[in-house]
């Protein structure tokens, strides 16, 4: 079982490196999609079925969004890497992070034996306290319901920010008004004053 997990993790690693080094952007996006599917299988094998379902579907949406972005902007992967200083800084950051993290994780109990202290309480008492058989749902919605409220807020803010970025298309905001004003200077007054005619 451990061999399967390690094999899948190695597959993910190779796929990610391949995706980042590919010249063709569309192939890179599809490779990241394959990595995401492999990740979903890994989640299932690690005993997290809710997360596996969510990961598969989120993967599909991410690949769809990235493919649209790739085809809407002309595929222009320039083969030249960035300046040597930038690449060295990137590799240096990566080595530093991974080195420190490996040292930190060596201090944890071995893979497959760690257990957070509250989890024993959750596993024994979740059904009695909430009535739910799925302990993860009872944690997400009942024991730690505030975190879910925070997550709802984060999604709202992210989508609202994306909408603000699209304002130059929808015509709201200053750039839209300027564009409308420049396109029709002698035209009728703005929409808000058309009431007398209606």
């Amino acid at each position: 079982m451990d061999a399967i997990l390690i094999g899948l993790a190695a597959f993910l690693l190779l796929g990610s490196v391949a995706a980042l080094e590919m010249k063709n952007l569309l192939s890179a996006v599809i490779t990241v999609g394959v990595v995401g599917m492999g990740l979903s299988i890994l989640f299932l094998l690690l005993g997290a079925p809710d997360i596996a379902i969510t990961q598969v579907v989120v993967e599909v949406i991410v690949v769809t969004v990235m493919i649209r972005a790739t085809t809407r902007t002309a595929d222009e992967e320039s083969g030249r890497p960035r300046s040597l200083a930038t690449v060295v800084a990137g590799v240096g950051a990566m080595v530093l992070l991974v080195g420190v993290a490996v040292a930190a994780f060596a201090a944890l109990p071995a893979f497959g034996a760690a257990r957070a202290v509250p989890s024993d309480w959750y596993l024994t008492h979740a059904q009695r306290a909430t009535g739910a058989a799925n302990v993860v749902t009872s944690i997400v919605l009942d024991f730690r319901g505030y975190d879910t409220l925070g997550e709802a807020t984060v999604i709202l803010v992210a989508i609202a920010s994306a909408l603000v970025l699209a304002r130059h298309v929808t015509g709201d905001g200053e750039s839209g008004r300027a564009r409308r004003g420049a396109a029709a200077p002698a035209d009728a007054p703005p929409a808000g004053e058309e009431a007398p005619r209606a």
Partner: protein
Amino acid sequence: MTFYALTLALLGVGLYGLLAKRNMLKKVLGLVILDYAVNLLLVAVGYRAGGGAPILLPGEDPAAFAAGSVDPLPQALVLTSIVIGLGATMLLVAMVLRLHQRYGTLDVDRMDRLKG
């Protein structure tokens, strides 16, 4: 420990992609890989060898279930994290598209020269 090391290497690959690539969409791909690595790390810390999913079945002994199940707490954290990662990726792609419309290129070094 090998599994942790491979996942941390994935984290490093994602970080490298975010920093050292000049195409903005490649940077977004690097961030997506970084998201995968962090979520995988959290779930892996909660894994118990030979354990089952943390869902109680009718007729199962609660004590045996509690002893043999994987840790549900990291899974609860990762569940929201995946959806938030999707929202953040959408926001990033919106930024990339807006920058492309403004500057006409996806290359950050050419964008530096076009500014102003």
